[in-house]
């Protein structure tokens, strides 16, 4: 490996200006830095856990050489993770001289603000959407706003404003669009291939130069906290005030953010965000599209990674059950050594995964379901969008020519201490004709497979009943019954 140069400062662009920070605490958040150090107080703290969107800013990153702006939650975004990016806050928005930006003017004219506290966050989310999609559908607007809470307006006025933005100006003439080339050049210039190291001892953060460098860093210091999207670790700091240092930031790391396809296996690098994985997964495994649309809000999807969702071992992570049902494999790496295991074997017990010190999740390999097989995933929550799973069921089915079940794999989240397969139910289905009678018999096996808990998201009784009923839904969907099978948000005009 080529010798890695070390740099002792974080560099990024804040609005118009280059910033170089030689001293950054490992747990310093972007929001506190903006508000307290820079007195940029247009960006608000509503919840400090990435759920309300009042702190939304845009972060421009170079992704395969292309400058992409994404909305993120500044409250749980670590300052140290911003190296080589362009941070855009509401203060940077402007229209023609002396005028508001089209997004802002539309919000004013359509009465999209009442108390105004959430408004800068909405403006930034809408701005991020408008840059990508100047004439968005209602569904696209709702999706872009899943991570923004407003308690006053009931959203209708904001939706009206969002639909009208393009009548106030052209996205192509927007300042950020005009500056795109210059910003790209400035960001390219910041990418010097260095490893960033700041601080010493326990107050230390590292941004590796690339995936290999990350492997070397973690191998040397196995106790380091690995932070990818910080949608989980961010809360360790803001909510639990846990000491997370030393930290290694691996978001947007070369060598960890690739998606590739080979022989109907999709390999997703551990640093790939939900947003970046969406296009490939939704196209190749269409059932995952609607699920991904309901993971977090847009800001969380722009930050959070599939690797992190697996590595943190949560029993209510949304990606492990469907990936287990699909028979995904996981590559773990320590230094230069790699091993590949079945994803379902990674989860040993609550809070315990098959990950050795110094080892990290490098990639997950997802088989694309063969033609003729059936695959579905259903997420149940209290609120439809941006909610954490109460129960989530994933179903993979292969029927033999005679209509019997040749292969079945059913995995659940929210039903046990880990993502877990319904072995008893599978056994009751395997080899049997795929009929409602078979399904009804199999439904009685759930009680043996799962003993769910009662908590604030759902009672044990509800989890057990709804989880069981999902099998019936899957049967109905795969057996030519009459739709509709689910309530849906999107068919309306």
């Amino acid at each position: 490996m080529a010798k890695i140069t070390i740099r002792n400062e974080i560099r990024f662009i804040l609005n118009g200006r280059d910033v170089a920070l030689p001293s950054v605490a490992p747990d310093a958040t972007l929001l506190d830095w903006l508000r307290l150090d820079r007195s940029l107080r247009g960006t608000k703290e509503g919840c400090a856990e990435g759920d309300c969107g009042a702190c939304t800013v845009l972060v421009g990153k170079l992704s395969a050489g292309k400058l992409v702006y994404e909305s993120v939650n500044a409250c749980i975004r670590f300052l140290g993770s911003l190296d080589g990016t362009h941070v855009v806050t509401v203060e940077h928005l402007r229209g023609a001289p002396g005028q508001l930006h089209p997004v802002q003017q539309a919000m004013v004219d359509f009465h999209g603000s009442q108390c105004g506290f959430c408004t800068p966050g909405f403006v930034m989310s809408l701005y991020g959407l408008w840059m990508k999609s100047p004439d968005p559908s209602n569904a696209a607007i709702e999706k872009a706003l899943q991570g923004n809470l407003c308690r006053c307006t009931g959203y209708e006025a904001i939706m009206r404003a969002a639909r009208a933005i393009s009548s106030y100006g052209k996205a192509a003439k927007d300042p950020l669009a005009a500056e795109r080339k210059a910003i790209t050049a400035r960001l390219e210039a910041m990418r010097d291939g260095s490893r960033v190291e700041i601080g010493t001892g326990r107050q230390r953060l590292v941004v590796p130069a690339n995936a290999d460098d990350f492997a070397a860093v973690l191998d040397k210091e196995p106790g380091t906290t690995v932070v990818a999207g910080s949608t989980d670790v961010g809360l360790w700091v803001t909510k639990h005030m846990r000491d997370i240092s030393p930290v290694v930031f691996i978001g947007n790391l070369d060598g960890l953010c690739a998606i590739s396809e080979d022989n109907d296996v999709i390999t997703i690098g551990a640093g790939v965000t939900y947003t970046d994985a969406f296009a490939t997964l939704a196209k190749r495994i269409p059932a995952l599209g609607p699920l991904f649309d309901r993971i977090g809000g847009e800001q969380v999807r722009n930050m959070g990674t599939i690797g992190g969702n697996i590595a943190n071992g949560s029993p209510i992570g949304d990606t492990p059950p469907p990936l287990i049902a699909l028979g995904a494999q996981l590559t773990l790496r320590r230094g230069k050594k790699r091993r590949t295991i079945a994803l379902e074997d990674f989860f040993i017990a609550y809070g315990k995964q098959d990950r050795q010190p110094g080892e990290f999740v490098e990639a997950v390999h997802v088989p694309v379901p063969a033609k003729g097989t059936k695959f579905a995933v259903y997420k149940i929550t209290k609120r439809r969008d941006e909610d954490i799973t109460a129960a989530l069921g994933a179903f993979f089915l292969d029927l033999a020519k005679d209509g019997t079940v040749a292969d079945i794999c059913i995995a659940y989240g929210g039903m046990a201490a880990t993502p877990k397969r319904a072995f008893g139910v599978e056994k009751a289905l395997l080899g049997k004709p795929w009929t409602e009678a078979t399904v009804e018999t199999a439904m009685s096996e759930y009680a043996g497979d799962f003993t769910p808990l009662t908590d604030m998201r759902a009672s044990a009784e509800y989890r057990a009943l709804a989880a069981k009923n999902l099998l019936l839904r899957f049967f109905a969907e795969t057996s030519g019954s009459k739709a509709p099978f689910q309530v849906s948000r999107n068919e309306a005009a």
Partner: protein
Amino acid sequence: MNKHASPNLKAQKISGGVATDQRHDSAHKHVSGTAVYIDDLPEPAGMLHGCLGLSTATHATITKMDLSAVRAAPGVVDVLTAKDVPGENDISPTGRHDEPVLADDKVQFYGQPIFCVIARTREEARRATRLAKVEYSQLPFVTDIGDLDPRKDKLVTPPLTLKRGDAAAAIKAAPRRLTGKMRIGGQEHFYLEGHIAVAIPGEDQDVTIYSSTQHPSEVQHMVSHALGVPSNAITVEIRRMGGGFGGKETQGNQFAALAAIAAKKHHRAVKIRPDRDDDMIATGKRHDFLVDYEVGFDDDGNILGVDFMFAARCGFSSDLSGPVTDRALFHCDNTYFWPAVHAQSAPLYTNTVSNTAFRGFGGPQGMVGAERVIDEVAFAVGKDPLEIRKQNFYGTSGDKEGGRNITPYHQTVEDNIIHRIVAELEASADYASRRRIIAAFNANSRFIKRGLALTPVKFGISFTATHYNQAGALVHVYTDGSVHLNHGGTEMGQGLYVKVAQVVAEEFQIDLDQVKITATTTGKVPNTSATAASSGTDLNGMAAQNGARQIKDRLTDFAAEKYQVPRDQVLFLPNRVRIGNQEIAFADLIKQAYMARIQLSAAGFYKTPKIHWNRDKGEGRPFYYFAYGASCSEVSVDTLTGEYVVERTDILHETGRSLNRAIDLGQIEGGFIQGMGWLTTEELWWDDKGRLRTHAPSTYKIPLASDRPKIFNVTLADWPEANEPTVHRSKAVGEPPFPLGMSVLHALSDAVASVADHTICPRLDAPATPERVLMAIERLRAAGRA
């Protein structure tokens, strides 16, 4: 305000008068991030930061409080406990002395503030707080009112009984009767800006406090009590809140009092901004209720007598639970005439945070109880609930047949327009034909069932404590003709400031941009009421109008004398004044008046006429008038999981002769969605240790943009006007739209009922989470099989 420009002296109409659609006065600042909330104010050098230490026992005596590690933590300057409160350790807003600033030897809920760390930075204060070692001797606790007897168990404040006629006899004599029980959940305000207070010490005993409060005068009084200094030493200011919804009516007192105590003790500015979790754990919420009801009715579904018990979870102290539970009873009729009624409240003591004001203030809970009774009767007699609703409506004032317009509190309903509201909505929402379409859909859909409901709203306007129905305003006209406006109302997003400014602009006949809206402060207008009970515009608009009229009167006298014309020849035209045959600019008249030493400042005042209330007798006229509306919602429900979506909602709501339809529309849309959230996904959940576990947006789910009805038609009725002389005949709009959300609960109930062929009342409790919906479906299926 619009850009400053010279006023148009030839205009036919002023720009920005009443009954025009003005944007929120701060909209351009909201969108550009330049609207200043308290946490955005520049911080004085040396400012300290406070963080509350919360109890980790639900009901206990404190046996030992070791704060040595807290005091030794980096950055910590002081740790305040109950003994540091120089005045009275009490912030009970009703004077019942049951709510300490900091708990002393006893804690009564999990999360009760027991100490307050003061440190150099907020971060240091937060970290230090966690180092406290507190030992408790546990006491028995109760968090759920389901475990209590509303007739026997401890109350936090005296209950209320309303009665008219002999309900027991009427029910007994009725051809049919039934009893039931309903659980109605509470609600977290989830204002986007959490609580915050900044106290800046002055000389002598003075403190200036910037407090995110709907009730600056109360903060002033509480701080003065806690400091043991007169009220005149305390000034409280608030330019805007990031949402209030009732959550900042009394709940800001604690933060303000502690910031002030620390500020005086250390002679430094002190800020306290709790994080979201502490805010949600340590401050009160909407009361949840258990409603027991008994109803007597005939075979046609005419209700003959009703008996209600409204038991409320009030928490450990009274706070506003008295008036909240009173208002629940005041709305247990909604739009219905109960021929004989008996209703009582039970404000129950529980070991939970003390519940408080929340948009509607108990009224929505009363109305939900009334609507449940309607549903029960409809299912019992096998009619569409809308038919039962309509046949039990109050009569109109012209209705001579039997006076079906007396409320349970003996006020006559004189302004009833619900018949027309509902008739128009029923037609525009196409209720009857959709009812048929839905029945056909349900017959052919195995898993997904649709439901439809139309629910009415009648909401009583005025504080039920008569003395709160007063307001003051301060109006200055400067020599350039520009106007400085101040009043006792607070701006929390509802558009009060712009509406009152419109009233003043209209009065002087000057463009709205000539009126500067200034921050609410106790130093300018004293002894104000909370901005609450939907009364902000009614009270402060009238007070400001009165202030402007005083000045206008003086100007008229002056002009008449100076120009030697009769008074009636002085006319205020847009941006100018016609005096006899000549016209001069308003600003020029002001200059002349100043030179002639005419007073150009006035303190306006208003008190609501006609209202009175005798709580002991349960009789009076607590409300000046009523506001009306109705909504119709259709939902789809997944009978396998209980998940649902709102397919369509139609609303017809009235605000009298609206001062600003754009602002009112926002209140209606926002109120509906907030009400829908309360009755659907917003669930407060305590664990078996008495800990609230839904204390952040990750666990407490308010509606998102994608929870809106897919089709959402909201119309302001353009024909009503207030039948009392309110400000420009407009009506209040803050709270009345909130219970429009009931139509979603009832549509869900209707969909659930379809699984048993509409033969069984689903008795769907609130919030109707997917879980409650599925469990109700299971219950109906089981009953259907039995």
